[in-house]
């Protein structure tokens, strides 16, 4: 495998997409082999905040070695707040790309749901861009009318929107949107908050649909070494020899039936 390292990436642009939601393009060698569904570890310059912030890759420009991340500032004095203050020309330390990504190839010839909720929406974009399939339905859920990335999605598939406050599309969540439009799929790819993923997993099981979900957990290393970021697995995992899988290394994307959420 290629020698990996912590890299000082250059910030190319920074833009606010919605209240507290930022989009950043960075120049990085990590773009070369990046895949949709993978993430990068982003590091602050703050001596008080040493751990990485795992952030999904939202778009990849392999040719010119650029990555886009879209992230939420989670509060005051957070690492993500510090990221949001970076400007074009600044640098940011990253390690990546990390994790396994979505199994794109499985979608060939199938009717697909690409589902994203909240801050799980961004990784769906690169997935939508690269996916080749029979029918590509993108179902994305937002809190309100600030439907960030919407135009990009519309350029890459058939888009259904759900908003919690009903201001755009279906009132409710992505599951409500599916029901409202009576959509069907043979394979599902999803990223979003745990309750949403639980609902999707149940729906997929009920309808016997192959389903891939991207999980989140607190991380320390991001590369499989510290065992911080585990989720419960159905079978005994080959690496851990217990019912735990590492989200950073064995995931973040898992076959829904593999994991307990």
């Amino acid at each position, binding site marked *: 495998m290629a020698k990996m390292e912590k890299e000082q990436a250059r910030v190319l642009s920074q833009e606010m997409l919605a209240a507290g939601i930022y989009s950043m393009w960075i120049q990085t060698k990590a773009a070369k082999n990046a895949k949709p569904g993978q993430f990068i570890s982003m590091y602050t310059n703050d001596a008080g905040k040493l751990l990485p912030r795992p952030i999904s890759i939202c778009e990849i420009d392999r040719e010119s070695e650029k990555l886009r991340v879209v992230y939420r500032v989670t509060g005051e004095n957070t690492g993500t707040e510090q990221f949001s203050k970076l400007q074009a020309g600044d640098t940011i330390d990253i390690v990546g790309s990390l994790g396994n990504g979505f199994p794109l190839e499985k979608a060939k010839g199938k009717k697909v749901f690409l589902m994203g909720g909240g801050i799980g929406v961004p990784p769906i974009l690169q997935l939508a861009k690269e996916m080749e399939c029979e029918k590509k339905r993108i179902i994305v859920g937002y809190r309100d009318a600030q439907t960030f990335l919407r135009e990009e999605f519309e350029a890459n598939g058939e888009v259904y929107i759900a908003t919690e406050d009903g201001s755009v599309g279906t009132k409710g969540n992505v599951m409500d949107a599916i029901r409202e439009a009576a959509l069907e799929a043979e394979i599902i790819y999803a990223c979003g908050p745990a309750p949403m993923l639980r609902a999707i997993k149940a729906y997929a099981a009920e309808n016997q649909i192959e389903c891939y979900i991207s999980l989140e957990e607190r991380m320390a290393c991001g590369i499989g070494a510290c065992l911080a970021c585990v989720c419960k697995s159905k079978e005994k995992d080959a690496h851990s020899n217990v019912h735990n899988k590492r989200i950073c*290394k064995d995931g973040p994307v898992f076959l829904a039936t593999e994991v307990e959420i």
Partner: protein
Amino acid sequence: MDMRVNIAGVEWKNPVTVASGTFGSGEEFSDFVDLNKLGAVTTKGVANVPWSGNPTPRVAEVYGGMMNAIGLQNPGIELFCERDIPFLKKYDTKIIVNVCGHAPEEYLAVVERLADEPIDMMEINISCPNVNAGFLAFGQDAGHVEKLTAQIKKIAKQPVIMKLTPNVTDITEIAKAAEAGGADAISLINTLTGMKIDINRKTFALANKTGGVSGPIVHPIAVRMVYQAAQAVKIPIIGMGGIQSAEDAIEFLLAGASAVSVGTANFYHPNITEEVVDGIRAYMEKNGFDKVSDMVGIVK
């Protein structure tokens, strides 16, 4: 510049290893670090049977460091011997296997199983909760430490490093107990017990409530304990706790450690170990030390 150090009869090419649990079995970091450049690789803790560890969240960030309650998840000694030791044998570095257990029998089973394995040293993590001593760990009671050390030494085929917990009133008492039990070396410090409360969710940041604090914030406490231990025992000491630069490592050597381990810094500076090796060499050059051992314990 002679970087070699001799720890209880085992010669390392340089005084730098990694802290158990922060480097996986070495494999996970092999894309970042040339393992051949390390004096030794210390593996994550392994028990006689697989352990599932604690519920998540298992880690939290704290100012200038982190807290963990992994709960010593490990695949058990069998899979470890089959998979992880052969992986490390491909490299020109010493292998130190870190051992954990809830009770003496569990430690002893691992030590016995390792007898014929091609490893160089073993490190006994006595910060594990001791099933026979309430919420205290083996390492918090000098009597338990001496006894466990003696039991292990009786059957161990490789040199034994006892790894001490800093959560004690008097580290010298524990260091002396390890020495009295026959330990070939000691290593310290393990993590300091801490707690973080998420004031918005009004609950503990870690599922386990408490966790082990590590990273740069523990460095001054670790240096103090290594210094005190060095005044109290004659066996070699491996110093660790918060090393994130060669300078941090050198403090341990001057305070009396014969070697050092880099832990938490691996997580945010994945090739820090190589930098520490190079930085120690540069310091020796600048300060006219021919051998690492000439630096050890000179600040008194």
